[in-house]
C-alpha cells in the first residue's frame, strides 16, 4: 500500500495538540472492576446459565462431556445437566454439526463445540449451505438458532493445520452472525446473546486466552447480562489514530496504545466484538475523530477482516482521513512449526507500534 503524504498529514494533526487530553481519559474497563474472571469461566458460566434458563439448549461435540471439554470449557456441565444435554460425539464433524443444524431447524438450541475451528472445515457444508441459508431458502419458514463455538486462530507450536483464523471466511457468508470476544465481559455477554439469538452464530474464541483472567463488574455477572450483537466497544479513547481489532488482537492494541501514549500518540482502541454484522457506525465515528485507522488481525491479509475495515473507512469517511488506512496481519503463509518462523508469521505489539508511528510520520 502506498504511504505518500502520510508525514505531512501527521504534522498537521500534531499541531492540534489533542494527544494530551486523551491521556487523561481513564480506561473504563479497569476503573470499576471488582472481580477477576477467566475467559474459560466466563464461557462456562454463560452456557451453564442459559442451559438452566432454557431446556432446549444443549451442548454437543467431541470430548465435551466425560473429558469435561478438550480445553475444559464445558467443565461440570455433564454433572449438572446429564449426558442427554451434554453430548459426547464421535469424531464426525460433518455428522454431528448436521445433527445440530437439523435439531435447530426443529426448534432446539444446540451449542456445537468444535475442538478448534480448524475442524469446522469438515463441517463447513453444514454451516454454510445448511445453517446459513435455510431461513432464506424456506422463505422464513425455517429458523436455525444454533451456536458454533470453539477456539479459532493460532495457538502455540501447533503448526499449519491447527493455526488458522476463520473470521474472514465466516463473516463473508450471508445468514451467519459472527462474534469474537476479547475479554471475559465479551465472552459472557456475547455467548449468552448468541445462544438466545434466533440465527446461526459462529463464535470465535482463542485458545491462548482461555486461562486469562479479566476484571468484570457486578453487572456482567447478572444472569441476564447480554452484549448486543453488532455493536463494537471503545476500550480506550484516543484522538490520533483508531486501532481496530477483535479477539486477542484487542489486547495487543491496548498494549500498543499504552506504549504509544509514552511517545505522545493518543490511540483509540476499538473492540469489534461482532464481525457480522459489523459496526460500521462505530468504526466511522472513531475514524472521523482520529483521522487515521489501523486494522490489526492474526489472519491472512488478502480478503481479510482488515480489508473490510479499510473499505468501511474509505466508504464512510474518505475525506476525514489524514493517512492511508493500513493493516497489520499475519504473514501470508501456512503457520510454520519452528518457533522463530512462527513468531515471524504473527503480528506483535511492536508491529502495531511501528505501523502507527509510520502512519503518524514519526
Amino acid at each position: 500500500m502506498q504511504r505518500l503524504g502520510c508525514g505531512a498529514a501527521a504534522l498537521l494533526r500534531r499541531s492540534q495538540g489533542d494527544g494530551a487530553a486523551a491521556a487523561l481519559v481513564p480506561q473504563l474497563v479497569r476503573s470499576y472492576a471488582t472481580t477477576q474472571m477467566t475467559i474459560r469461566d466466563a464461557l462456562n458460566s454463560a452456557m451453564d446459565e442459559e442451559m438452566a434458563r432454557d431446556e432446549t439448549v444443549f451442548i454437543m461435540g467431541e470430548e465435551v462431556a466425560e473429558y469435561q471439554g478438550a480445553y475444559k470449557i464445558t467443565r461440570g456441565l455433564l454433572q449438572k445437566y446429564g449426558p442427554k444435554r451434554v453430548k459426547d460425539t464421535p469424531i464426525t464433524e460433518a455428522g454431528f454439526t448436521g445433527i445440530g443444524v437439523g435439531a435447530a431447524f426443529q426448534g432446539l438450541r444446540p451449542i456445537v463445540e468444535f475442538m478448534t475451528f480448524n475442524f469446522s472445515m469438515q463441517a463447513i457444508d453444514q454451516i454454510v449451505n445448511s445453517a446459513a441459508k435455510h431461513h432464506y431458502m424456506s422463505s422464513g419458514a425455517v429458523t436455525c438458532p444454533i451456536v458454533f463455538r470453539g477456539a479459532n486462530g493460532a495457538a502455540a507450536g501447533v503448526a499449519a493445520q491447527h493455526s488458522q483464523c476463520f473470521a474472514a471466511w465466516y463473516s463473508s457468508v450471508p445468514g451467519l452472525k459472527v462474534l469474537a470476544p476479547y475479554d471475559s465481559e465479551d465472552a459472557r455477554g456475547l455467548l449468552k446473546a448468541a445462544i438466545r439469538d434466533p440465527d446461526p452464530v459462529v463464535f470465535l474464541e482463542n485458545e491462548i486466552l482461555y486461562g486469562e483472567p479479566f476484571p468484570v463488574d457486578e453487572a456482567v455477572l447478572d444472569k441476564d447480562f447480554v452484549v448486543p450483537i453488532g455493536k463494537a466497544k471503545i476500550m480506550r479513547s484516543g484522538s490520533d489514530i483508531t486501532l481496530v481489532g477483535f479477539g486477542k488482537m484487542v489486547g495487543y492494541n491496548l498494549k500498543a496504545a499504552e506504549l504509544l501514549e509514552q511517545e505522545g500518540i493518543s490511540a483509540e482502541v476499538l473492540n469489534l466484538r461482532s464481525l457480522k454484522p459489523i459496526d460500521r457506525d462505530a468504526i466511522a465515528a472513531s475514524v472521523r475523530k482520529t483521522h487515521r485507522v489501523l486494522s490489526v488481525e492474526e489472519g491472512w491479509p488478502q480478503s481479510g477482516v482488515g480489508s473490510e475495515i479499510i473499505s468501511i473507512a474509505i466508504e464512510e469517511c474518505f475525506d476525514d482521513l489524514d493517512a492511508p488506512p493500513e493493516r497489520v496481519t499475519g504473514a501470508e503463509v501456512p503457520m510454520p512449526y519452528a518457533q522463530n518462523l512462527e513468531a515471524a508469521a504473527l503480528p506483535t505489539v511492536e508491529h502495531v507500534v511501528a505501523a502507527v508511528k509510520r502512519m503518524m510520520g514519526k
Partner: protein
Amino acid sequence: MVLGREFEEMCAQMYYRGKMFGFVHLYSGQEAVSTGVIKACLRKDDFISSTYRDHVHALSKGVSARKVMAELFGKKTGVSRGQGGSMHLFDREHGLLGGYAFIGEGIPIGLGAAYQVAYSRRVLGNESDDRVAVNFFGDGTCNVGQFYESLNMATLYKLPCIFVVENNKWAIGMNHPRATAPSGIADNEPWIYKKGPAFGMPGVHVDGMDVMKVREVAMEAVERARRGEGPTLIEAETYRYRGHSLADPDELRRKEEKEHYAARDPIPQFAKYMVANGLATESDIKALEAKVKEVVDDCVEYAENSPKPDMSQLLENVFADPKGFGIGPDGRYRYENPGFTAGTAEVS
C-alpha cells in the same frame, strides 16, 4: 520397536524440557503395528500415510531418526526444515506421504498414491509396478465419512492399498464403544474389521501387541495388493501407554486397563520369543538396547546442535512457483525483489 520406544520416551523428556512444543503425540505401546507392517512388509518405494502420531511410522519406513528429532526441535536439519513439526512429517524419498493432523484426512491421500500406482500399471503401461500404499489411522477415525468413502472407492477402483486401523481403544478421552455402534444386529462389539466385507474387501482382526502376528496378516494383505487383487482392512488391537498427547492429563483410562496392556508390552514379548526360538541371546538384546540408546542420544545431540531455520524459509515453499506472490508496484514479480524472503509479518 526398541528404537521407536526409546525415541518416543526421549521426546517426552525433551517436550518437558521445552525443546519441542505444541502437540506431541507419542506412539509408545503400539510399536508392534508399525514394525510388523512397515518394517517387516514394505519396501522403500511403497507408500504410507500417517496421522499426528507419526514419529515411529517414519522411523519404521527408514526416515533418519536424526532428521525426525531435528524436525521436532524445529530445526533447519529436520525432515521439513522445521516447517512441518511433530504432526506433519514428510519424506518423499522413503514414501512417507505425510503426517496429517485431521482425522481421516490421510486416508484418501494414501488412496491417491495407490491410484497413481494403478494408473501407472493400467494407463502408462508399467505392468511390473507393484507398489502399495498403507494408510494408518486410529479407532476414532473409523467413524469419519472419509474412511467410508475411501473403503468404497478402494474396492470400486481395485486399488493396491491396505487400511490399518490401530485400535488403541481411546480417541483422546472417548472410549471406542462409546463412539462406535455395534458392528452387527446380533453382535454387541464395535468391530472395525467387520466393515471390510461390507465394502467388498477382506477384514482381518489381529493382536496388535504381537509383532509376529501383525507381520503375518500384513504380509498377506500386502501380497494381495501387489498382485492387483485390491484392498484389505486390518484392525490391530493395541494400546497407547501415554495420554493422547503430552498435554492430555489422561484421567479417564482405568488403572486395570493400563496394567492389562502393560503386561502385554510388545517389546519384552518379542524379546522372549527371540530367545525362546534361538533367534537372539539375552546379550544380543542388551547390546541392541545399548546401541539404540546411543542412536537416540545422538539424535538429540544432532538436533540440539543444529541451526534454526533461516528466516527466508518463512516465505519459501508457499508456492512451487513463487510467481504466486504476484507482481509488485515496480512491475516485477514480488519474489524477485531483493530481501523478499527476509520475512515479516507486517503487511501493508
